[in-house]
């Protein structure tokens, strides 16, 4: 606890607060732009953090993450087009409220619910992740391999409509992760004489290509004119009566979001719909849901923001990302010299405390940025895509270049942009590639290390209880996730058919 207080002192330095603030504002703007996903926003803004000191850069990264999670609700309420899939449930009641002239009421409730949900998620993260990491310290190679398989299995299971396409994308990503030096003997693989590839495909240029450049190309294909905002934003804080009415829903949904977010692969969209369903089920007036019930805005917003803290739990304690956005955070933190996972609690405890403190300050920043900038963010939605897309492309290329001042990274970004575009075009999800790039080396290193020690014996499947549990959990999660995904797809299709929101997302796994 003392360490956490010391971290508060470090994080409340003006420079760090400013970094978090800028991160939250940038994340909110990108989250608020329909069609520009939170994953893309975080990928695009990550290179801006590398010239900074570790604590500033960490603060900005977490700020971007929290801001992007909140930003998605703004267009969902104002123009019935969720900025992120996690905000799709918000549109179902938020938009009717806006149509009734209550956009300010809906937006203010969304802000307060988002901030409350984030606080709940962060509180649970601070309490749970050290406990899980203590347990994970008992892990050896076989357990870490099983953990990587567990992480991958869930990611694949939520990969859009086709499991086999998700699997193909994951295997493609895993193969990409084998480019570079062999983790056991250091021999080069698939580098074709290019020493730039000895350390593997550069992570940031690869992900900028996959998530930003491909989105720009897809956006160029279907230029949609920006929608005019008719709704009036007349308040920034919810009425006391509304807050008291929604308080139990917010707390319950924040907890639901956090625990769902803690399951690797189960993102904000699942949490938002589960919380929405629960709020409707427990409401005295369930018939109001879908027609502008204020709890219908509070529940999904608290849940998808609670997810942010939840998704950080496996990231910090096990080194396994909870979703595509946390996968980018993991890559960014690794490049800053931090390796999230159980050992981080032993070797870099002050940094862990800094992350906790930065998340708490980040929640306050979301509130301040959200309250002060609500009217501005509402206008951001109207920016013309014809101007926005070329600017995003320039930022993507510059971001890749700035990593190593190497033009080869720009070419790699363009190549992965084309790959990402083609994958999207043929309905292959992109998130499994990103997660495979992170989990692949972990899986290979630990599997081969174990097989070297055991002389090629695969008996860990049944001789090591943790491995058995993790591998069985992988199979179970695969089945459960598939069933959940089908249910959500049905709900989304039903909501879309009823015209309750516009869906700009074809593959929601890639658009978190």
């Amino acid at each position, binding site marked *: 606890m003392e360490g956490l207080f010391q971290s508060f002192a470090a994080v409340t330095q003006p420079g760090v607060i400013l970094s978090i603030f800028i991160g939250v504002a940038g994340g909110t703007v990108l989250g608020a732009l329909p069609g520009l996903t939170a994953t893309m926003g975080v990928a695009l803004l990550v290179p*801006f953090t*590398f*010239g*900074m000191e570790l604590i500033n850069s960490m603060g900005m990264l977490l700020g971007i993450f929290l801001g992007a999670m909140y930003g998605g609700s703004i267009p969902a309420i104002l123009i019935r087009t969720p900025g992120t899939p996690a905000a799709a449930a918000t549109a179902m009641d938020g938009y009717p409220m806006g149509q009734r002239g209550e956009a300010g009421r809906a937006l203010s409730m969304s802000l307060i619910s988002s901030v409350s949900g984030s606080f709940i998620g962060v509180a649970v993260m601070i309490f749970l992740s050290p406990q899980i990491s203590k347990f994970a310290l008992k892990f050896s190679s076989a357990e870490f391999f099983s953990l990587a398989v567990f992480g991958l299995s869930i990611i694949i299971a939520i990969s859009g409509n*086709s499991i*086999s*396409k998700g*699997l*193909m994308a994951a*295997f*493609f990503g*895993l*193969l990409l992760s*084998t480019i570079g030096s*062999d983790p*056991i*003997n250091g*021999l080069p*693989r*698939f580098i074709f004489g290019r020493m730039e590839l000895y350390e593997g495909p550069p992570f940031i240029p690869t992900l900028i290509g996959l998530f930003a*450049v491909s989105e*720009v*190309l897809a956006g*160029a*294909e*279907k*230029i949609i004119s920006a929608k005019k905002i008719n709704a009036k934003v007349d308040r920034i804080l919810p009425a006391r009566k509304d807050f008291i009415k929604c308080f139990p829903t917010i707390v319950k949904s924040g907890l639901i979001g956090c625990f769902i977010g803690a399951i690797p692969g189960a993102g904000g969209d699942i949490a938002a719909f589960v919380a929405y369903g629960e709020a409707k089920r427990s409401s005295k007036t369930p018939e109001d849901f879908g027609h502008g019930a204020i709890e219908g805005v509070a529940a999904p917003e608290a849940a998808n923001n609670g997810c942010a803290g939840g998704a950080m739990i496996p990231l910090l304690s096990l080194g396994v990302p909870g979703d595509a956005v946390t996968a980018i955070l993991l890559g960014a933190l690794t490049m800053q010299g931090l390796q999230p996972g159980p050992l981080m609690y032993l070797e870099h405890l002050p940094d862990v405390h800094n992350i906790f403190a930065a998340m708490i300050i980040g929640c306050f920043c979301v509130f301040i940025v959200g309250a002060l900038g609500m009217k501005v963010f509402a206008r951001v939605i109207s920016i*013309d*895509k*014809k*101007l926005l*897309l*070329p*600017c995003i*492309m*320039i*930022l993507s*290329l*510059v971001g890749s*270049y*700035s990593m190593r*001042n190497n*033009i080869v990274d*720009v*070419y790699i970004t*363009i190549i992965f*942009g*084309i790959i990402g*575009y083609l994958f999207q*075009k*043929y*309905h*292959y999800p992109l998130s499994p590639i990103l997660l495979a790039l992170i989990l692949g080396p972990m899986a*290979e290193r630990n*599997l*081969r290390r174990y*097989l*070297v020690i055991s*002389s*090629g014996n695969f008996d860990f499947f049944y001789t090591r209880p943790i491995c058995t549990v993790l591998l069985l959990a992988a199979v179970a999660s695969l089945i459960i996730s598939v069933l959940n995904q089908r249910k959500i797809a049905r709900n989304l299709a039903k909501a879309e058919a009823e015209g309750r929101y516009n869906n700009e997302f074809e593959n929601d796994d890639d658009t978190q």
Partner: protein
Amino acid sequence: MKQKGLRANLITGTAAIIFGIWVWFQADKFPEDPTITLNSDFFPKMLVLGLIGASLSMMFIAYKNEKGEAFDSISLRKPAMQRVVLILAATMIFAFIMKPLSFILGGMLYLFAVTYVLGNRKWKQMLLVSIIAPIVVFYVFKNVLGITLPMGILKFILR
């Protein structure tokens, strides 16, 4: 619709299988390390088998699917696809000229060209954004982040 979707899935599935076979043969060329039981090709070959298995399963499911999947075809006759190709070409040219010409000049040309390709015809707005955005990005990177973007032929002015 079914035929079109099936064809697209069969083509991408076959491409993945060919890619897998190519990776397998490349992995075969890795030098062997006699000191360890499992060599560098072990994991990539395992993954190739997985990729081929998943591709076959995807193609089988696509074949069995009654309704078929809806795809937007890639045809250069479509104006939308022409836009994508032109933007890609402009992006590649920008990447090539960024170093010799400078980020600022290259960026100005790139932004103007791409906004035009995207259908913008508000000339004043296009000129303003094309000129201001690269200069702002250059100085933010230089002064705030300490990263100098390529200065090319402008290096005597920008130093």
